[in-house]
């Protein structure tokens, strides 16, 4: 094939493109071609690395520039809220969701992102609502004020209705400001205080649960709006997976009245090994009835209700029926709806 858009024509531009010597239109053509041509992609990558060497790196910027940039960075984009170590996964997920939302156009906010009816705007209102249950329990003032004993579903209904009447920017600011206030108050709260989200949890666990849900909904929003998303950093994913492993007996117990043990092996960065009672028994002795090996990210998505247990890819040994029944119950841990 020949012509303006042919491989031959575009590949001749690679050198000029690598030194930014094309017109903007030609640069766009090259970029588009690189997305579908492995040969040119390889050459472009090599030439770009060479171009990176052309300018040298022997000059040092003025001494104050780094400090000025760090200050300016706060204005461009808020960093993750400062938080105690146990709440860092939550703070990180808040920053990542804020980043995703900051790039959305008005149409993106109205896309259906979860539960077949919730738009991106609604989903953020839902996060604002559930976070507000934690914030209120820790003494942070929330809007609208909350009756004691309000559950996540009721609170979501109230807050979603309220936020639908407000511009998305206000919802975003309210959610982010509340997350900052929540993190700020944590160091002053006793670690053994409990908050009820479905069931009572100590404060560190409830912050992990909030990190988990914020991550899952970030992926919902990214999926609905064709936005990029990153899986949690391994050091943040690991405690989230651990929380899931510790909480799962609460939702699997009904299906395992006679108890049973599951050996869970989650692979990949942030993974680990757990022996989990399937029923209510706390007896962790004995040999597991089934061993399940799966990717840690995919397992967390299953627990978050975002994967079909029937087709969930896992390597199972021991009692396959027990393992599949246990996996089928895992998504019940997702707190909503």
């Amino acid at each position, binding site marked *: 094939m020949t012509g303006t858009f042919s491989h031959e024509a575009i590949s001749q531009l690679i050198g*000029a493109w690598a030194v930014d010597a094309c017109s903007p239109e030609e640069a766009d053509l090259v970029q588009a071609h690189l997305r579908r041509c492995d040969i040119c992609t390889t050459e472009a990558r090599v030439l770009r*690395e060479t171009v*990176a060497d*052309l300018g*040298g790196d022997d000059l040092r*910027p003025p001494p104050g520039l*780094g400090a000025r940039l760090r200050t300016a960075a706060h204005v*461009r*984009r808020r960093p993750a809220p400062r938080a105690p170590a146990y709440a860092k996964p939550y703070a990180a997920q808040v*920053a990542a969701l804020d980043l995703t939302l900051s790039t959305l156009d008005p149409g993106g906010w109205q896309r259906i992102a979860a539960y077949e009816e919730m738009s991106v705007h609604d989903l953020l209102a839902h996060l604002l609502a559930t976070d507000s249950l934690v914030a209120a329990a820790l003494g942070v003032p929330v809007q609208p004020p909350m009756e004691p004993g309000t559950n996540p579903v009721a609170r979501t209904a109230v807050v979603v209705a309220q936020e639908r009447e407000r511009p998305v920017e206000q919802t975003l600011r309210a959610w982010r400001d509340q997350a900052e206030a929540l993190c700020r108050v944590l160091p002053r709260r006793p670690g053994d205080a409990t908050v009820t989200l479905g069931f009572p949890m100590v404060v560190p666990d409830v912050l992990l649960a909030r990190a988990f849900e914020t991550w899952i909904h970030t992926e919902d929003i990214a999926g609905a709006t064709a936005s990029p998303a990153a899986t949690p950093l391994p050091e943040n994913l690991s405690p989230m997976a651990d929380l899931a492993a510790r909480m799962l007996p609460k939702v699997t117990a009904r299906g395992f009245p006679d108890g049973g043990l599951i050996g869970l092996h989650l692979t990949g960065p942030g993974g680990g090994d757990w022996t989990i009672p399937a029923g209510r028994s706390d007896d962790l002795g004995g040999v597991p009835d089934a061993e399940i090996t799966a990717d840690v990210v995919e397992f967390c998505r299953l627990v978050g209700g975002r994967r079909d247990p029937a087709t969930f890819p896992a390597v199972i040994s021991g009692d396959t029926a027990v393992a599949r029944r246990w996996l089928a119950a895992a998504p019940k841990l997702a707190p909503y709806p």
Partner: protein
Amino acid sequence: MRLEWCRGGVSALVHQRSTESSTAERAASSEEDARLRDRLVFGDEDAFSEVYEKYSCLVYTIAVRVTRDERAAEDVAQEVFLSFWQRPFAFDAAKGSLRGWLAMIAHRRAVDLVRREEAHRRGNQDPQLSMAALGGGDPVADQVTDADTTHRLRAALRTLPEPLRHAVTLAYLHGRTYREVAMELGLPEGTAKSRLREALRRLTVALSNHAHD
């Protein structure tokens, strides 16, 4: 001038590049880049500081070389780092190194600045950044220090035949498009494109060889 392609074409270039470090080292470096990017996604200010510490000399040096103006170079460096903090997903570790990407963004922004200044200069003849002032001599040799990287670069540029060196210098350091290169050197546009590509291919080999000296 008759252009001679590097023997083996792209595969030879890749081979040359790949001999600089083992596959495992490059994979580790790519993972490190990806992690740094992800830490920015998750709003980690320390990661921003690390990126700055690691690459500020590279970005600033490129900006100075192209703009020849320290204030302008500072502005370019500031925009490069702040835009990465603001839009970290713009970098994709699967497509190349963070070093290469930041260098690309720095060069692109510096060239844009110089082109705007050049257009402005044509308008009022009062340049802050005048490409016309960059004409004579060896623009790289004029500025180099004894630093190893610039020594390697100068040596690598010397290996190029004059026509290739002239073309790549005009484009890289003076911000000329290949069409402007063609016009200034009295070449057909196709030849200017070929010279830029061939110059970079040869520099790839020369810089790799120097890395092993």
